[in-house]
């Protein structure tokens, strides 16, 4: 199947280009100062969703400010290793579907840890406590 693998490769290179363009945009422009799209959940309800602060955290992370990034969105920063390593596995499986296997990404504890920490993080960052205000963006 040379054609399918070639079209897969072109989709992948387009995706990587788009990702690099976004990274460059986040590196150059601080979302705190430019009107990047606002979170609709926060706009409608006033609550912080698990994604609030990700754009600013990414900007801080791209500038090496790990502590500032963690204060903006701890969940996003904590997920970076998983997303990078898991993303590599997904890229590999995208290029060669037969190479997909039961890797560490298929550990039940990993999936439920992500579920639990996302829900806990979302609940805690909306509480009026010192911890809550640190977890809030």
């Amino acid at each position, binding site marked *: 199947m040379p054609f399918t693998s070639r079209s897969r490769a072109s989709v992948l290179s387009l995706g990587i280009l788009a990702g690099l363009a976004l990274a460059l945009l986040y590196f150059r422009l601080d979302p705190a100062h430019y*009107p990047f*799209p*606002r*979170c*609709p*959940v*926060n706009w409608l309800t006033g609550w912080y*969703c*698990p*994604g*609030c602060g*990700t754009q600013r955290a990414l900007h801080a992370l791209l500038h090496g400010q790990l502590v500032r990034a963690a204060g903006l*969105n701890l*969940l*996003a920063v904590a*997920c970076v290793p*998983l*997303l990078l390593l*898991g*993303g590599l*596995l*997904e890229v590999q*499986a995208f290029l060669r*579907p*037969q*190479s*997909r*296997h*039961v890797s560490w*990404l*298929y*550990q*039940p504890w*990993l*999936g*439920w840890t*992500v*579920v639990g920490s*996302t*829900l806990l993080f*979302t609940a805690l960052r909306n509480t009026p406590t010192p911890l809550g205000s640190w977890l809030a963006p």
Partner: protein
Amino acid sequence: MEQTYNSTMNTSPAGGPPPKNWLVESILVTIFCCLPFGIVGIINAANVNSSIARGDYAGALDASQKAGKWTKIGFFVGLGGIVLYILFMFVFGGLAMMNAASQ
């Protein structure tokens, strides 16, 4: 000839690759698209993993399809929101400029 599909390493009846679990994609949608759909995707992704560990291939396939569905819904709704937001900014920015020019 007896065949059992309860091995944790061999989840599909044909011994082929396991279904995609969508964990990476659903986390990305959760932290970037700001919508609750991503969390539904993560829960289904965790269900894929648990089903595979149990050796339940049909359950894993079902959870995989649900995880993919919610991750894609979150992605496209989020993308639509961003496009609407940009259009909104352009329209209002244009109106503000016309106002400034007419004064």
